[in-house]
């Protein structure tokens, strides 16, 4: 430890530490991971807050994400413009929310946004079908997929409007104790 790093100012590092669930050391480690993705693009000096975005293709090639069927949605949700290209802030935010210290409500909020493929604020039947297809790599028949979606809506839709709102989703997450351990990326 100690103050030998020259990447961030002391205040910046403290701000990151206070606003994410990471300690100083972990933030530095994450920065070097980010920098390794695009060494020519990312400067080693962030004291002047450069505006650098690592393109989505490099993010999705990270070993933690490359076999994740939802990696595109994850990158889109956490990126600034919803296109998957991430700044360092987005990168830290993403791993902070997916770390094991993030509380359930925060994770549920972002999980909802990830599964909401058309970004309309609701998980409708189409979003569900996309989710199930990605989960099973398209190996379930169309009939089975629609049956599964129907049962999901039956179980989770509280006000019976044919789609899941954020509250329905959070209610369902409350009943799923595994959520905290599965919605977790170790880095």
């Amino acid at each position, binding site marked *: 430890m100690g103050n030998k790093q020259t990447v961030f100012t002391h205040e910046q590092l403290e701000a990151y530490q206070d*606003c994410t669930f990471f300690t100083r050391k972990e933030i530095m480690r994450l920065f070097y991971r980010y920098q390794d993705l695009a060494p020519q693009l990312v400067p080693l000096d962030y004291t002047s807050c450069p505006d650098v975005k690592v393109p989505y293709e490099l993010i999705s090639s990270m070993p933690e994400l490359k076999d994740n069927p939802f990696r595109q949605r994850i990158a889109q949700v956490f990126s600034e413009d919803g296109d998957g290209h991430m700044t360092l802030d987005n990168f830290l935010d993403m791993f902070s929310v997916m770390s094991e210290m993030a509380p359930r409500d925060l994770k549920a909020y972002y999980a909802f946004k990830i599964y909401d493929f058309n970004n*309309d604020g609701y998980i409708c039947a189409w979003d569900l079908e996309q989710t199930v297809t990605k989960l099973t790599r398209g190996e379930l028949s169309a009939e089975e997929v629609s049956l599964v979606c129907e049962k999901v809506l039956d179980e989770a839709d509280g006000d019976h409007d044919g789609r899941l709102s954020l509250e329905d989703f959070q209610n369902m997450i409350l009943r799923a104790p595994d959520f905290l351990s599965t919605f977790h990326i170790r880095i």
Partner: protein
Amino acid sequence: MAQPLTFVLSVPETPEDHGPEPSPYDESEVHDSFYQLIQEQSQWVAEEGLELQQREPGPPETPGSGHQTLLGPEDPLVHSTATLRILASMPSRTIGRSRGAIISQYYNRTVRLRRRVSRPELRGVGRSARPSLRLYDLELDPVALEEEEKRFLLVKELQGLPVAQRDHVLRGMPLGLAEKRSLREESRTLTRKRRGRRGRRGLLPCCGRLRDACVLALHSLGLGLLSGLHALMPWRYALKRIGGQFGSSVLSYFLFLKTLLAFNALLLLPLLAFLVGVQAAFPPPASPGAVPAFTGLELLTGAGRFTHTVMYYGYYSNTTLNQPCVPPLDGGQCSREADGLPYNMPLAYLFTVGVAFFITCITLVYSMSHSFGESYRVGSTAGVHAVTVFCSWDHKVTQKRASRVQHDNIRTHLKELLAEWQLRQVPRSLCGRLRQVAVLGLVWLLCLGTALGCTVAVYAFSELMIKSPVSTEQEGALLALPTVVCVLNLGAPYLYRCLAALERHDSPVLEVYVAICRNLILKMVILGILCYHWLGRRVGVLKEQCWENFVGQELYRLMVLDFIFVLLDTLFGELVWRLISEKKLKREKPEFDIAGNVLELIYGQTLTWLGVLFSPLLPAIQIIKLLCLFYIKKTSLMANCQAPRRPWLASHMSTVFVSLLCFPSFLGAAVFLCYAVWQVRPSSTCGPFRTLDTMYEAGKVWVRRLEQAGPSVSWVPWIHRYLVENTFPVYLVSALLLAVIYLNIQVVKGQRRVMYLLKEQISNEGEDKIFLINKLHSVYERKERRAGRTQEAEQLAGDLDTW
């Protein structure tokens, strides 16, 4: 309950801005990053048709039907833009999704936080990101504040919170990191300014500054400790690899191992500090007779060279160490020893073991209740499809092959669920059910019979060992009983697994629970017989010798042999089985048996707890054993096994593991300890309780001495006489505890009922909403049709004119 809300609905008269691109969302309310997407979406929806068109609504006049589909903007947009505008400005569409709404919602939360007198529980403050209409009146409150104003107010509220709480709130906000940093920056600058202004005013703000400084110092200390702990926490990379390759379920075994390491370290520290260290510093006079030479057998039997060391009970003296010098009666000089604190060894022994157990108990109960609280919920009904779809993908899995295995698992699970649902519609015949019950009963009978048989075998063998006493030359024979126990412990679970193949359970998770139950019964019964053998029979047989040493050594032997047999089992069970199954049977790699391995860990921990009284260094041996076990199991796992194919509820399982650790395991050890301390006569030739009737008497002797010491410490004897020796307080406390438990049960029942009522209410509200929207839709459709007709009529009139 609710105040009547007056709906002021401002509906635009005619859709004059009925342009070619009806954008259904108010631009200023939408999250910036999704604006583009929504634009594109609405264009696409307007130009092409929608695949959702097939969901034609049922007759909207029957609000009682189960699923009413919503006629929303998904329907063809050619008509009723006005409806769309109204729908777009519905509070549920705008609140909770936009940044401004989140900011204002958090502003309201922090206001409530600040106004509370006691320290608020942040977790209890509103769960959903959607505030109630009463708190945030977007359309209804004519004096709606702008986003900027709300943000400023939020910043001001954040300053009112102490630093640690402010950070906690900031971290939990679902905003972007840049946004959080600017909020933090603003709240700090304003605090600094305020502090600067107030600093000239006197003493009271000085206390505030001091408090802030203390909190900041504690906060940075806490963070430093946390990062230090993270550095100390070993195996971060190893755990990441295991999780990446095998998923959360197998990882839970290794995390449990880590937890046990922590428990043992916690147990060892007071023992090392107060017993082993002190006695090693003041060794007792050397025992008569030659010290036996060190042969390798000591490592297995624990006897021989190790007998008269700090490892066992017999080494500890029964006097007060470092006592101030009392000159002998014949007037001689007393040798000048170091004058330090007198250390009453028997008392220290009793208290240290007691306190160590108490701390372990508190930690166990706390972690069990915490884990229980996380995994069980009031009124949690089966939502298994939803949970499978949303929560079953383990994001920790990073390897391609493991990822594919996960895909397969989830697909299989979904297919099983669908099949089960279809099967449930065909109820099983009475004959089939009876047959299943019969098979179940038979298998249980066989398993219990096996457990009984093993117990009888252990009992008979132990009686045999008593009848043929072992001389010092044949120390190897001491290993016979532990070997038999270990063989039975290893062999019977395999038998159980074969028997379990006969019965067919409906749910695979139930199979796992049943297997755990049977193995647990076997192990606990065998341990029970051994405890009876030690405290009941051995005490009588070894009357003049040091029976405590013997019991300590037996437990040491059991632990070491258990470790060796686990090694052998890993070698043969996993490595050789993998070679056989790959070469000969052409099947896949064997699965990692999580339940069996965890029960092994619990068994080993029980042995440690049983033996702490008789061998204070046993936790150290357990720590070494756990460390070796981690690396061995990890290597074997990576080389030989695959992840379990059954769906595994990882968090339920870890709750079950910790509960099993607490209830049969720790409770049994505590009962054994209490019995040994209160009822059994300690041996008269060795140990710190040589001259007493029971070990507990050391405490009584001390209390009596305190009584004579004077009135200044008289409250200790008083507590002892009226609260500990007296049985009435015990009954009172038990009765109170029962009352509290009963009250809690009633509260939970009431909560469940309230939840049921609220769910019904939500469902009714949903139906009302759909009904109203459909009515609105039809009203506007009629209006537009009328407007269209008048337009046509006008056009026709104009044509006629020109013509």
